C-alpha cells in the first residue's frame, strides 16, 4: 500500500519535473538561466552514470571527469583539426571512451573499495596530465578555440536555446534508459553485486562482466556529455576535467541520492546552482557554506534529495489522508 503511494508520488514528482524542465525556458527563465540549465543537463548525464556505477553496483570512481574529458577532446580535435562531422566525432569519441573503459576495467576491477578509489583517482590524474601535456593535439593548458557547432541537415545548434533542447533531450533519454536498466534483470544483478559479491556469484551472476559493462556504460554517458560540452562552449581546456571535477560528480551523485536515477537531476541542479549562483553571495566564506550545506543534506537526507523529497511528500499525503478520514 505504502509502496503504491510512494510509486505514485514518484511519478507525480517526475512529471512535474519534466514539465518544469521542458517549459521553463519559454518565460523569463529563458533569458537568464538557459546556460545554467544546459550545464545542469550535462552534469546530470555525468551524475547518472556514476549513480549506476557507485549507487547501484557499489564500485567507486574518483576519476570520472577523465571520461568526460576524453569525449570532449575527441570531439574538439576531430571536428576542428581534422574537419570530421561533429556528430561522427561525437560517436567516435563515445566508442573510443567505451573501448578505453573496457580495457582499463580488467586491471582496475581486480581492486575493491578504497584501493579501487585510489586507482580511479590515479587514472583521472594521468588523463588530466595527458590533456595538459599533449599540447600538439590538445592545445595544452591554453586549450582550443573555434570548435564548430553541432548541426543536423541545415539546422545549426547555434543558440543556447536550441542546445538546451538537444542537451535535455539526450539527458532524459539517458535517464530513461538508466531507469529501465535498473529495474531489469541486469539491474538486479548490479544491486546484487553491491549487496554481496559472494552471494551474487552464488546465484550465477558473473560479477566481473557486469562491473565491466556498467563501467563502460557510465564512461560512454560521460563521453557524450563531454562532446556536447565542447560544442556548446566551442572551447576546450584541461581545467574542467581535473580531480576537483571528479569529486564534484561524486558530490552531485551523493546529494541527489546515490541509489536513485532521477536523483541525479536534483544533485546536479542543487550543486550547480549552489556553486554558480548562491555561493557567490558569500564571497570568501563560500567553501564554509558549501561544506555546511553538504553536511546538512547528509545528516537529514542520507539517501539524497530525491528520496528525501519523495518520502516527505508521501508523509504529507498520509497525514492529509488521515485528517480526511477523521469524522
Amino acid at each position, binding site marked *: 500500500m505504502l*509502496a503504491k503511494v510512494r510509486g505514485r508520488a514518484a511519478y507525480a514528482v517526475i512529471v512535474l519535473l519534466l514539465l518544469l524542465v521542458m517549459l521553463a525556458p519559454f518565460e523569463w527563465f529563458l533569458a537568464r538561466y538557459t546556460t545554467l540549465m544546459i550545464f545542469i543537463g550535462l552534469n546530470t548525464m555525468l551524475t547518472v552514470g556514476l549513480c549506476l556505477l557507485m549507487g547501484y553496483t557499489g564500485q567507486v570512481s574518483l576519476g570520472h571527469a577523465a571520461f568526460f574529458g576524453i569525449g570532449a577532446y575527441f570531439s574538439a580535435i576531430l571536428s576542428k583539426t581534422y574537419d570530421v562531422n561533429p556528430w561522427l566525432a561525437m560517436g567516435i569519441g563515445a566508442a573510443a571512451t567505451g573501448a578505453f573503459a573496457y580495457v582499463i576495467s580488467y586491471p582496475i576491477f581486480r581492486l575493491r573499495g578504497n584501493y579501487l578509489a585510489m586507482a580511479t583517482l590515479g587514472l583521472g590524474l594521468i588523463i588530466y596530465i595527458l590533456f595538459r601535456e599533449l599540447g600538439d593535439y590538445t592545445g595544452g593548458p591554453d586549450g582550443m578555440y573555434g570548435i564548430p557547432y553541432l548541426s543536423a541537415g541545415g539546422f545549426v545548434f547555434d543558440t543556447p536555446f536550441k542546445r538546451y533542447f538537444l542537451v535535455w533531450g539526450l539527458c532524459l533519454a539517458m535517464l530513461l*534508459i538508466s531507469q*529501465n*536498466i535498473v*529495474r*531489469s*534483470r*541486469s*539491474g*538486479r*544483478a548490479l*544491486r*546484487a553485486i*553491491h*549487496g*554481496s559479491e*559472494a*552471494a*551474487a*556469484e*552464488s*546465484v*550465477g*551472476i*558473473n*560479477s566481473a562482466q557486469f562491473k565491466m*559493462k556498467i563501467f563502460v*556504460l557510465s564512461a560512454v554517458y560521460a563521453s557524450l556529455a563531454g562532446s556536447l560540452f565542447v560544442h556548446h562552449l566551442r572551447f576546450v581546456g584541461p581545467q574542467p576535467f581535473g580531480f576537483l571535477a571528479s569529486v564534484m560528480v561524486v558530490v552531485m551523485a551523493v546529494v541527489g541520492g546515490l*541509489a536513485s536515477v532521477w536523483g541525479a537531476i536534483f544533485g546536479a541542479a542543487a550543486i550547480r546552482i549552489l556553486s554558480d549562483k548562491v555561493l557567490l553571495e558569500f564571497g570568501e566564506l563560500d567553501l564554509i557554506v558549501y561544506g555546511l550545506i553538504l553536511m546538512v543534506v547528509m545528516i537529514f537526507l542520507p539517501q539524497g534529495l530525491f528520496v528525501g523529497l519523495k518520502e516527505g511528500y508521501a508523509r504529507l499525503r498520509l497525514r492529509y489522508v488521515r485528517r480526511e478520514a477523521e469524522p
Partner: protein
Amino acid sequence: MTSILETKGLCRAFGGIVALNNVDLAVEAGRITAVIGPNGAGKTTLFNLVAGVYPVDRGEIVFRGTALNNVATHKRTAMGIARTFQNVLLFGNMTALENVMTGQHVRSRYGFFEAAFRLPKSRREEETISLKAMRYLNLVGLGMHAQRNALDLPLGQQKLLTIARALATEPQLLMLDEPGAGLNTLEKRDLSDLVRRIRDMGISVLLVEHDMDLVMGLAEWVVVLDSGQKIAEGTAGEIQRNQRVIAAYLGEEEE
C-alpha cells in the same frame, strides 16, 4: 543409485594449515546427505571448494560426470549447483521477492540492451521471472512478505529466504551451510519439513550442520569429517554407534 557429486582425493591447505586432506565424498542423487564434524573439521572448506569460492590444491570434483576444477563459480550455478551461506548474505538493498528474483538470473537471458529499451523479450522474461520467484517464495512460506526488505525479516525467515533464492536457480544439487544455526526448535522442525519437500522435488541436498538432532532426524547419509579427514560415513544410526565419531566429538579416553 548414482552419485550426482563426487570428490576424489580432495586437498586444500591455507598457509601451513591443512583444511582438507584426501577427502573422497559421494552425494547420491535424490538423497539428503549431511556433512558433520567438530569445529575446524573442514566442512565449510569442502562447501567452498565445491561452490568454487577458491581453487583446490589437489584432487578432483566431479558433478554429473563433468570435472568442475576449472569452472568459475557463476558457471557452476548454471550447471545446477546452488548454495546458501552460514552468514546468510542476503541482498539488503532489495525486497524479499527481488532477492529470489536474482536467483532466476541464471535461468533467463535478456541483457542490458533489451532492458534499456524495454523490448518485448525483456517484458516476457521479467514476467516469468517474477512468477517463478513468487512460487519459490510461497514454497518456503514467505509469500506474504514479498514486498518487505530482506533484512527487515527475522533471522529464521532470512534463512528460509536464502533457500528460496538458491532454489530459484533451479538446481539439481542444493548445498545448505548450517541452515539450522540460530533457529528455535519450532523453526528447525519446519526447516526439516522444507528440506524433505525439496528432496521430494528431485533435488539432491548436501548440508553442513552442527545440530546433531537436526542431522540425525533428517539426513539419509552422514559423512563425518575430523581435522580435514573423512573418519566415517553411513546412515544416522551407524554414525551414532561409531566409536571413532564418538571419540572425535567427546575426546578420547586417557590411559
